[in-house]
């Protein structure tokens, strides 16, 4: 899968940027911080995910003083050429077109084109709280199996419904119909847990493989579901736990059972399992989780997704930096990496773009 061209208009500091990336290999976008490298990668990601990897609201993406930002691009896939056009208004929902036809459901685009993004914020997957790891699992789920996003939205709605019921109940005992919502929570929750287990099973081995290449030892990624089912059925296990926590839930007026309380355990294994010793090691783990996800997506769809890697080198020592660069150049498919420092442009790069003041200039002869 590769981006034949991409065009950003009124997108953060890019008034107008249009580029034709080389079809294969490592592309390096270089320029001082604040000049628009990350914005460029973010805009490219929009063509695949129809959303920003950095912010959930639209407004920050729109260039100062503008009403809307635009990201367009044409993606060549095994299934044909896909022209994706996204209009991102300051307020309200984005409008999306696929091959010039309006698209109502984002998943209709996301199942056709795939991109994977890594950015410095991903360090929180390793260092942050459990919610950040759950978000990674869910991002990975959508990247791997876009149609399964409905599992997440359904579950999210069950929890909001049930939380509202618990919060507003003033009577004695339990609110009427709580049992019915228990059933919905068990069903929707079990579906999310099974999907997340599949995500970890798909991503963990590839992530560890990437990590071994960098560190010489394994990365252990273990799904920690809020409710485990030993042999039995997951739905029934969730119902059982809900019964156990009934009094707590009524007192605290919130859902205490379900995958919204899942976690993922991350550790390295050299001699024994241990936590991450250094900033560089944690950074490498976060990067390898994204690279592992990209590999898992490739296995799923039969071609590599476009890989967008924002500022991967700054926290790595020179040896690991060279290793990462070399592996990115050799992995196949289109890989776009941003670096701030000219000295960080790897020798293995197939093309180099200079990014300055929201403008992108491909270097000739590089």
């Amino acid at each position: 899968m590769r981006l034949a061209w991409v065009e950003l208009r009124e997108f953060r500091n890019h008034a107008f940027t249009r580029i034709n990336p080389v079809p294969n290999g490592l592309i390096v976008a270089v320029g001082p911080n604040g000049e628009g490298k990350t914005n460029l990668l973010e805009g490219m990601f929009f063509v695949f995910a129809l959303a920003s990897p950095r912010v959930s609201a639209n407004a920050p993406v729109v260039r100062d003083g503008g009403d809307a930002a635009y990201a367009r691009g044409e993606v060549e896939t095994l299934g044909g050429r896909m022209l994706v056009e996204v209009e991102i208004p300051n307020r309200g929902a984005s409008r999306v077109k696929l091959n010039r036809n309006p698209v109502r459901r984002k998943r209709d685009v996301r199942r056709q084109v795939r991109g994977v993004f890594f950015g410095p914020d991903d360090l929180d997957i390793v260092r942050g709280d459990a919610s950040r790891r759950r978000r990674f699992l869910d991002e990975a789920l959508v990247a791997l199996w876009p149609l399964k996003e409905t599992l997440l939205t359904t579950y999210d709605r069950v929890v909001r419904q049930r939380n509202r019921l618990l919060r507003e109940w003033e009577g004695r005992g339990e609110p009427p119909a709580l049992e019915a919502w228990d059933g919905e929570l068990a069903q929707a929750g079990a579906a999310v847990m099974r999907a997340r287990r599949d995500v970890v099973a798909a991503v963990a081995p590839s992530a560890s493989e990437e990590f071994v290449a960098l560190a010489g030892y394994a990365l252990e990624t273990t799904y920690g579901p809020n409710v485990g089912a030993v042999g039995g059925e997951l739905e029934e296990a969730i119902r059982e736990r809900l019964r156990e926590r009934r009094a707590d839930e009524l007192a605290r007026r919130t859902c205490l059972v379900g995958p919204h309380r899942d976690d993922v355990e991350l550790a390295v294994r050299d001699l024994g399992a241990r936590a991450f010793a250094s900033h560089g090691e944690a950074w490498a783990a976060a990067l390898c989780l994204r690279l592992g996800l990209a590999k898992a997506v490739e296995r799923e769809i039969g071609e590599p997704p476009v890989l967008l890697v924002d500022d991967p080198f700054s926290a790595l020592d020179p040896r690991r930096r060279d290793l990462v660069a070399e592996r990115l150049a050799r992995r196949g498919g289109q890989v776009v990496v941003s670096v701030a420092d000219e000295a960080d442009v790897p020798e293995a790069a197939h093309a180099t773009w200079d990014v300055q003041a929201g403008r992108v200039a491909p270097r000739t002869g590089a």
Partner: protein
Amino acid sequence: MYEGPIQELIDELSRLPGIGPKSAQRLAFWLVKAPADDAKRLARAIVEAKERIAFCRECGNVAEGDLCRICRDPGRDVTTLCVVEEPKDAATIEKAGVVKGRYHILGGAISPLDGVGPEDLRVQELLDRVARDHVIEVILATNPNLEGNATAMYVAAMLTPFGVRVTRLASGLPVGGDLEYADEVTLSQALEGRREM
């Protein structure tokens, strides 16, 4: 903010479901500018609907009079009840022509986020009918979405003491959607393949 009749009209319109202050303003100005006949026809239709259409005291569907057409029909089986959320759902199923029994309109689905609890639905009326008419089967045809499923589970639990057969429409319906989007073939298949709850 405006003065006099126009503001009154805006206030009245903004009380309608799904109409925010902005839409109410737009509608009000449209009505004021529209030809007098158009506005009068709309006003008449509202008054007439309000005067002539009532709700069936049995099933809760719209009716001209005390009972709806289906509840008046002696040929319809009283021992099978098909429970739906809204009158439009009964109309959709009726078009597929597969239910020989009668309907029961709940008047919505349980949704705490919308402030709708079981006490806001016609559940007690359903239990009364089940007991009185010696109902044998209750088909729960609430929408195949989250709120519809939760409502079906709740109603099924309430029906347990009555020992009636309680069934739910088979899957195959567009999940997360509304009954009204299902075509007739899908709907009759869903009814034929209904399963015990």
